[in-house]
């Protein structure tokens, strides 16, 4: 009986959670007309904004991976005094309201800053570069924390054995640690990418133009209310579907879910 009670409780709580997330979307769709929606969806500025979001988020996530994964390795494996301070620093972009992050970034990259004045030709703000800078800042905690947790979850004895068998730190990192931490890191990459696409507040300060899809939705709402903003919203929801598909294809766990187990084992050995 208790066993059944536990199952029912889990199902009810899950059902409420799902309804809470999906219901607002369902209600919006109910008051749009298909013709109006199609018109709204085919506007070039909506697609421009969508492409800008995809491209900038990809670049941001790549840059973030380049710096964030090594930093996460540092946090996981190196022992230094004052690590506490570093941990606080890592979560600051997570805790700051995005508008505040954007305003602070403007202090560093805005037209009056010394950094910008030393690079006169470059447009750090109100440009795609500004979008990327904003996205990197707000997404960084996701990349760093997820990767750090992934590294820390790998049993240290694997690394120790590898070192004993003659691998140096670099070889151990690429041959043992990274593949074993793969899933956690991929989740970090995906979360950073998604956060970058969904970013609004910091981008509004750093680069209101060219519009990302979030800003386009914001502006569409200001101009014509939800009716006009729906097209952008739908594109983003489609993106959510794509992301889950990507997760299924690229992670071992995902492929297992899809019962492509054979594919998983043969390709992962070839991935080294």
């Amino acid at each position, binding site marked *: 009986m208790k066993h059944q009670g536990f199952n029912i409780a889990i199902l009810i709580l899950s059902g409420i959670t799902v309804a809470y997330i999906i219901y607002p979307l369902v209600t919006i769709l109910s008051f749009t007309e298909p013709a109006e929606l199609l018109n709204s969806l085919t506007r*070039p500025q909506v*697609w*421009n904004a969508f*492409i*800008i979001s*995809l*491209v900038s988020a*990809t*670049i941001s*996530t*790549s840059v973030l991976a380049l710096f964030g994964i090594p930093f996460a390795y540092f946090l996981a494996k190196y022992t230094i005094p004052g690590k506490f301070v570093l941990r606080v620093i890592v979560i600051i972009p997570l805790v700051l309201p995005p508008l505040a992050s954007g*305003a602070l970034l*403007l202090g560093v990259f*805005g*037209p*009056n800053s010394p950094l910008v004045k030393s690079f006169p030709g470059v447009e750090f703000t*109100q440009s*795609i570069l500004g979008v990327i800078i904003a996205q990197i800042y707000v997404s960084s905690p996701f990349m760093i924390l997820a990767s750090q947790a992934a590294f820390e979850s790998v049993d240290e004895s694997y690394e120790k054995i590898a070192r004993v068998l003659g691998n140096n730190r670099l070889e151990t990192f690429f041959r043992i640690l*990274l*593949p074993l931490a*793969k899933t956690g*890191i*991929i989740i970090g*990459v*995906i979360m950073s*990418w998604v956060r970058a696409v969904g970013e609004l507040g910091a981008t509004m*300060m750093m680069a*209101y*133009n*060219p519009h990302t899809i979030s800003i386009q939705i*914001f*502006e569409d*709402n*200001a*101009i*014509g*209310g*939800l009716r006009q903003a729906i097209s952008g919203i739908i594109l983003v929801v489609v993106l959510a579907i794509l992301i889950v598909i*990507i997760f299924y*294809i*690229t992670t071992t766990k995902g492929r297992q879910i899809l019962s492509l187990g054979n594919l998983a084992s043969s*390709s992962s050995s070839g*991935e080294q």
Partner: protein
Amino acid sequence: MTGVFSILAAILIFSISIDSIWSVVGISQAQIYKGKVFVMYAASLIKTFEEIIGPAFQKETGYPYQGEARGSIQVANMIIDGLRKPDFFVSAGTIPITKLMNNTSTPFAEWLLKFASAEMAISYSPNSRFYNDLEQARTGHIPWYEVLSKPGFKFGRTDPELDPKGYYMIITAKLANLYYNDSGIKQKILGEDRNTKQIFPEEILKTILEQGQLDAVASYKHEAIARGFPYITLPDQINLGDPTFTDFYRKASYILQAGSQTVFGEPIYFSFTIPTTVGNLDGAISFGDFILSANGKSILQEGGLNPIKPIAEGNTAKIPSYLRNMIEEGQEKEATVL
């Protein structure tokens, strides 16, 4: 691992090869050859500027248009704080620009041109519980302020510290006290100046009205027209749209908390300036020319604004000669027609 990065690379390549990316790149190339014009403007104009004026200007002149709508006071604050360097600034009323002109350390503007007049109105939603009463008020059967004072009526407006429309509404309500000889009107319909139950950011105000969360909002007449809302016209004596009542308008005021500046009631003139921090002067002049041209004026008129003969204020000698000539020529033409 390589799976993820190849997916990322695929997205990058795929999106780059889509046609629309070329238009983005095209714009950036155009930015290099014919510099973009960065226009910051009063948020009530967002639909007209983003959907009509921006594309029309770009098509006619070849200058890429880049617009950002915000409350006019907020624009002035951002310029003063060094957060933005627009080429062109369109403001609701003259106070945001005079704030730039009077900035003590460095003035950010030296002149302004009033180019269109606007008036206050009450927009409302067909979804409101009070819709019938509001319709009665619109047709003049019952006083509008009585409807707004009804218990449970939810009125919305913008922050007087950020948006001229915010303080204009307060001033209009104070003028209503005088005009209708009832000193309780302003308190009944607005409550205190920064009444937290009524104040919302400009960008979401009309949306929550549409969704039925508010019954009516303070707006300019041209906003109501642009957005397709039914609206109540207010008497000329209080709607800040008729210069013949300038002296009467002056009887009400609002004190801006930041800087303790007093804003007196005045006819609402939309005005523009080219700030001193302009990057693309030629583009900015071109935009000013477009706004003042016959084409620009008819677009504004369709959007519900009322173009006027331009009136210059401030250090008029600093107005770019091209624009100054345009204004003088316009005045000469008017003289010969008469």
